[in-house]
């Protein structure tokens, strides 16, 4: 019943596209479905356990709360009144139906790189969804950010709509990867450092950024804290299954893997890996903090008592179960927010069909004080060949407060 409705809707809408009317509906629908996977639309627009794409996921931005709207073809509460051109313009410019300006939490700066064909496929797919009546109040920002007119200025300063331009010096695979990463995949939304206005710093793209209490790590080819140690298979394996010999995805990336990358084609994952591995990463040398410092000695003792049973005496971990800490880029990010967070709050890894275990790190906030968390992380970041800055106890205290207040 539902299926036949979907095809009926698709038929009607394809007809409205005119030029595409002669095309095979199934192919376009499938391509659109895949674009929704590449774009991880569900990540924001589907509540866990809720109706697909009916909205309702709240995003905590540095400026306040935004709630992802309903993008099912419901005419009252969804995008049922939109035209294909409305949708294309929104994806390209951030200006939606009736001229309403979208906040860049909707990653139109990335989506503007997408081709009109891909956007058209996605539009067909979204219109084939079951319409769901679900009114969402998207803008829950405090003054003055709730004034959408301010976005004119934001866009003027931070956003230049541009199509994706292939680099003829590089392979087709590289260019496909670049398109996915910069365009529909919108990796930079989390992984690129931000300006004070929340825009990507284009000169340090994908160099890592803190958001929503997590550090989205550097994913350039930097050897120590980027993907320099990861092979192409390590990258594709991680994106496909959520785990590889170094890491297990948890936090927001676990959702990305579950909703998006685990459903991407092997060829696209490989293209992404090829592109990321080609992004220059700085190779500055770092030296580890001396093992005989007070913090390191305390940290070693805490590690032995609390961490070594799972992560191993030498930080070696167990594949698919306990992340490796030795030589792991995640442990050596410039910012230790994710490490502090998982020690304080614990974290459940994501599950995929290929790696269903979903092991969890227990919360140790009740057991370790701020200085102890700082010391053990300083130890983890500077042992077994690792080298990174010491973790200040104040950073732990700050995140602890933030977690306790629910933000």
């Amino acid at each position: 019943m539902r299926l036949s409705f979907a095809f009926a809707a698709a038929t009607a809408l394809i007809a409205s596209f005119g030029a595409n009317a002669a095309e095979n509906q199934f192919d376009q629908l499938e391509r659109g479905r895949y674009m929704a996977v590449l774009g991880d639309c569900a990540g924001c627009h589907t509540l866990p356990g809720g109706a697909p794409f009916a909205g309702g996921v709240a995003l905590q931005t540095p400026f306040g709360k935004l709630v992802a709207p309903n993008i099912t073809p419901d005419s009252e509460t969804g995008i049922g009144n939109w035209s294909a051109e409305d949708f294309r313009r929104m994806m390209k410019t951030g200006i939606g139906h009736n001229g309403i300006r979208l906040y860049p939490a909707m990653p139109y700066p990335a989506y503007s790189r997408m081709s009109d064909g891909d956007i058209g496929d996605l539009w067909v797919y979204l219109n084939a969804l079951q319409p769901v009546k679900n009114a969402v109040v998207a803008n829950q920002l405090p003054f003055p950010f709730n004034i959408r007119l301010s976005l004119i200025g934001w866009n003027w300063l931070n956003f230049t709509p541009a199509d994706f331009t292939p680099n003829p010096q590089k392979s087709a695979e590289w260019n496909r990867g670049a398109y996915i990463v910069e365009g529909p995949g919108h990796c930079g939304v989390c992984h690129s450092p931000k300006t004070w206005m929340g825009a990507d710093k284009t000169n340090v793209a994908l160099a890592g950024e803190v958001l929503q209490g997590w550090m989205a790590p550097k994913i350039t080819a930097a050897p120590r804290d980027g993907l320099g140690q990861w092979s192409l298979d390590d990258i594709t394996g991680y994106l496909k299954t959520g785990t590889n010999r170094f890491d297990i995805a948890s936090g927001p990336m676990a959702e990305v893997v579950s909703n998006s990358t685990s459903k991407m084609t092997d060829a696209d994952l490989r293209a992404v890996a090829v592109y990321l591995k080609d992004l220059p990463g700085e190779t500055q040398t770092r030296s580890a903090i001396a093992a005989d410092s007070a913090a390191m000695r305390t940290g070693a003792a805490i590690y032995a008592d609390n961490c070594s049973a799972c992560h191993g005496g030498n930080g070696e971990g167990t594949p698919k179960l306990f992340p490796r800490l030795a030589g792991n880029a995640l442990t050596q990010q410039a910012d230790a927010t994710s490490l502090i967070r998982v020690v304080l709050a614990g974290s459940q890894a994501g599950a995929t069909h290929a790696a269903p275990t979903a092991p969890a790190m227990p919360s140790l906030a009740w057991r370790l004080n701020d200085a102890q968390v700082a010391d053990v992380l300083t130890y983890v970041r500077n042992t077994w060949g690792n080298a990174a800055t010491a973790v200040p106890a104040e950073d732990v205290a700050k995140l602890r407060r933030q977690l306790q207040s629910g933000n």
Partner: protein
Amino acid sequence: MARKLPPKDVVIVGLGWTGAILAHELTEAGLDVVAIERGPWRDTATDFNIGYAPDELRYSVRRDLFLQPAQETLTMRNTSSQTALPMRDFGSFLPGTGVGGAGTHWNGHTWRFFPSDFNLKSHLTERYGAARIADLTIEDWGLSYDELESSYDRFEYLAGISGKAGNIQGKLQDGGNPFEGVRQREYPLPAMQMSYAPTLFAEGARSIGFHPFPTPSANLSKAYVNPLGIAMGQCTACGFCERFGCANYSKASAHTTILPVLMRKPNFEARCNSEVLHVNLDATRKMAKSVTYVDASGEEWEQPADLVLLCAYGLHNARLMMLSGIGKVYDPSTGEGTVGRNYCYQTNAGVQLFFDDKNFNPFIASGALGQTVDDFNGDAFDHGSVDFVGGAGINCIPTNGRPIGYRPVPPGTPRWGSAWKKATAENYLSVLGFSSQGSSYATRGNYLDLDPTYTDRFGRPLMRMTFDFPDNDIRMSHWVSDRMEEIGKALKPRQMVSSRRQKSWNSVPYQSTHNTGGAIMGTDPKKSAVNRYLQSWDVPNVFVIGASAFPQNAGKNPTGTVGALAFWAADAIRDKYLRNPGALVSA
């Protein structure tokens, strides 16, 4: 009044080892399955947090993970001439509750019974004559070891059992158990690395001609990914297995081997903190139509289903059958009735060796890290010249050196004060203990039924346990204690203390949570409650899975066989029952 819920294909009562295995197998077959579990959901990182999982006071002394008697208990007595009284505290055995069941807080000894354990009655009759077993009501299982072999194998590979095979396809293997039945392949993981105590025990046993081998263990010797794709860690030998959940994903349980996959399935649902009161039968009393349960808020619900699987702890399976009128309750005075029949236990004894010059570091331990001698188990040896049948495994498995419970001191030491402290300090590191895990054979007078006096919080009669160690089993245990003392002498301790099994059974000191029988399988509907597929003879859309099905208990821990029976029953349901619902064996 119970509110009726939409029907399911299958309702499973209890989400422990057997419930999880059956749920996984039947959801794979496409059925819509709901499991109703009276205890809480538990999760490794949250409930067995590495920081408090080894809290001996909370988990071992106060038994945080166990069934509380206020929720359900039993009455007990030794003989039917006595009046049973309720156990107001569990002691001799500790049933589990909650998702994972007792499989969450077990030690992890994972055995296959001997082939002769399965056709015990006919085997012993043939070998020693019917007169030898005249005092016993032992039975054949109606299922042979060879038929169950592949199910054992599946359970061992699911759980990542660490061990050394003794007999692969008929070929004896060095270092394994030479008395075991034929297995088709090696264990999934190598045996655990031995600590000193079992190593020394094995040397002593070997020096007098016995055949020690590594105890098959559900504490993992290495990291493992099981056939469901679930990853498990290497055991760290922390010594907190029995009575504890494992913080390290290194002890096999439903949590660490099945639930991550099961819980992702859209055709599976677990309802926790929901206690099934009874199974509802239709007017013919030949078909189950639903179960009635009470949720955490006290609401009563009726869950209809085509198939009802009783997967609770064995004792509770038997009680649910009695409360639901599935089968006739056993009456020892007439010998009629099947439910409650052949309740058996385990017949254990121990030896402690005190040394002056040894350091066993007892805190380096795990629930199943040890060595076993099976020379005197089951019918591995000729009983022609002895006055009993059955036997025992002799196990040196030092499970822990925990600070509250592990205080080995010589007899005569004061129970408290400075002399006790001094003796603790002198002996803590240097005591070697081992024990016999003896068979428990059924008699006419050991059974389960409903208590005429005492009721639970819902007003349902408690189950009454009438049990004492049969004379046969006591003779067996003493004979095996003699063998244990021979091993002890070979190790030349300063002092040897032998704790022999004596009558009568006492429900207070902890002995073993290996309660078997009560809904036994077999070939005769007059003597067994379920057929060889664990299907009720009386109500064919009810299957009863667990140690409740053992016609008698062997000298081995039951979980390996319980797991194998779960796979066996799942195969029967999927491959036979679903194709042609009804009795799989004609009565």
